[in-house]
């Protein structure tokens, strides 16, 4: 383990890739994406709780729901209570959650009773909670919901007028302070560790080609001991990477919406992800004939994880592909903590951790077997 750590800080290329690169990336991206940007998506999953469903004026709330559905921008999922809907939103299963308040229909009827006398209106507020972990949802959902509301009240001749109904947007108010960097920061944690794959592959093929592995195999230390030691080394490096990315993020003003427990969880899931990276590295080493070839082979594992599992915008097919990328589960968990501000008890982050850990152990196991069988000769 000691020799690998020494190699890391004595080899300029390795030092750059594992330590300097994540810091540089954090700082450059942090400054580059300080302003909120846009994006595009075809539809949003919206949870809906209708508290006005049993009122005599329920036809208005039903019309609002129909308009949401007909807009083809929203996929509406009905919820029976506020807690379940909020929980789904917090875990990233919904882009937004809308609560139609009691008296919603009465408000519209009161408006039509006296359109020019606001003092006689019955005022209500639609609850709108947007997934603050989704830059696209934060930007697009509130105006779209507003537009649907206007269509519901005024029909296709919707105008910008005063209404007895407001749309609350607590998540929007909070999100409006987010920069694009806030949305990208969680992906950086995975991005930094992904390159461990290349370092492991190069290191293992180099040691094989130079006869070092053979030499070590004539000592009492078993191959398993050696591989475990290598894996532990890279887990230490992953811990350092997380600490550096966090420190440099803090230095440029980033403040994640989580506490010490969330930070600790990030270290744990990053460690689990380092197993994934080491596993891919061993597999790359097993199928590479030289250290040079292993660099190219490593990128076959690195690139898809970069594009589909870190901070790149996902939607449609890329989102489906992303589900097969271990890095996406790390990014999702950190997004849930850092952007959505979900508590540490949120089930989805533990599911993400379980997925990353299982994949990590599995890939390291497969990597060791393949390297022993095909790569270490």
């Amino acid at each position, binding site marked *: 383990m000691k020799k690998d750590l020494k190699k890391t800080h004595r080899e300029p290329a390795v030092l750059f890739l594992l330590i300097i690169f994540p810091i540089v990336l954090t700082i450059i991206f942090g400054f580059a994406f300080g302003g909120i940007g846009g994006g595009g998506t075809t539809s949003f999953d919206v949870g809906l709780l209708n508290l006005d469903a049993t009122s005599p004026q329920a036809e208005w709330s039903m019309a609002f729901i129909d308009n949401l559905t007909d807009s083809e921008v929203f996929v509406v999922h009905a919820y029976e209570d506020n807690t379940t809907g909020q929980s789904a939103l917090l875990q990233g299963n919904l882009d937004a959650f809308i609560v139609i308040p009691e008296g919603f229909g009465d408000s519209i009827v009161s408006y039509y009773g006296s359109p020019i006398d606001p003092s006689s209106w019955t005022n209500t507020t639609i609850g709108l909670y947007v997934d603050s972990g989704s830059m696209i949802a934060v930007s697009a959902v509130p105006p779209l919901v507003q537009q649907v509301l206007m269509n519901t009240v005024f029909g296709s001749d919707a105008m910008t007028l005063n209404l007895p109904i407001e749309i609350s947007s607590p998540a929007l108010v909070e999100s409006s302070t987010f920069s694009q960097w806030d949305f990208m920061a969680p992906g950086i944690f995975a991005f930094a560790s992904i390159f461990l794959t290349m370092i492991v592959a190069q290191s293992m093929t180099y040691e094989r080609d130079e006869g070092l592995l053979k030499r070590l195999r004539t000592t*009492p230390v078993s191959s398993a001991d050696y591989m475990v030691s290598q894996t532990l080394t890279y887990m230490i490096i992953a811990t350092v990477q997380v600490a550096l990315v966090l420190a440099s993020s803090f230095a440029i003003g980033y403040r994640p919406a989580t506490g010490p427990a969330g930070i600790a969880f990030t270290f744990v899931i990053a460690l689990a992800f380092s197993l994934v990276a080491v596993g891919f590295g061993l597999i790359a080493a097993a199928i590479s004939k030289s250290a040079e070839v292993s660099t190219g082979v490593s990128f076959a594992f690195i690139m898809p994880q970069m594009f589909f599992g870190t901070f790149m915008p996902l939607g449609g097919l890329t989102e489906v592909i992303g589900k097969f990328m271990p890095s996406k589960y790390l990014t999702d968990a950190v997004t849930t903590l850092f952007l959505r501000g979900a508590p540490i008890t949120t089930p989805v982050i533990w599911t993400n951790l379980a997925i990353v850990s299982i994949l990590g152990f599995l890939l390291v196991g497969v990597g060791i077997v393949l390297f022993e069988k095909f790569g270490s000769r």
Partner: protein
Amino acid sequence: MSESAITITNLTKRFGDIIAVDDLSLEIGWGELFGILGPNGAGKSTAVNILNTLLEPTNGSATVDGHDVVFSPESVREVIGVCPQEPAFYPHLTGRENITLMGDMHLVPKDVLGSRVSSMVEKIGMEDHIDRKAKEYSGGMIRRVSMLMALVNDPKIALLDEPTVAMDPKSRRAVWDYIRELKMQGKAIILTTHYMEEAQELCDRVAIIDEGKLIAIGSPTDLMETHQAKNLEEVFLKLTGKKLREDV
């Protein structure tokens, strides 16, 4: 401690259709410095790699300090020190760190390791360079460090595969002195070499191998007398009709 340091019985190793070692039988005693001579591709390194557990024989058996190389490889690795033909080392580590790493791999106690490394380095004349990174070393320095890496665990049996290739005469003499000292300590040493003067100077007995077969065995003096040759090179020439070192 077993009666013989190394016992090789009808050892054969095939790689496909190629027979690298062909029905080799040898017995090497404690305190014996045993040379294996032969041209490139004769099967010397293959035989050594079977003894150091990197390769398994196709047929036959070998025991090292009484431990079978196939059935008890872990026990074999505890008593051997291996200096490979191609010096394998970590270039970003210093010479001392490379040697210490091998000591760690052999589970040498920490309190012993540091002083042992310093003592070995002094004997081999590397004390002025040992704390430089290995990638800055000359070929001869790397060979010397590689040999110390093999011997840092104070092995009962040393397997030295061409340890003095590319060394200047002074360094080679230092290594020879070191090997003699190991022999005096009662260790069994197998030395494969291209250098006939090295074998004549150091070895108690030598085995001459060609195309995997043992073609002669005995002390250098006996072999030269028996075959009425001036040196071992000539012995080989008389036995096989070809030169021992085509490349030199």
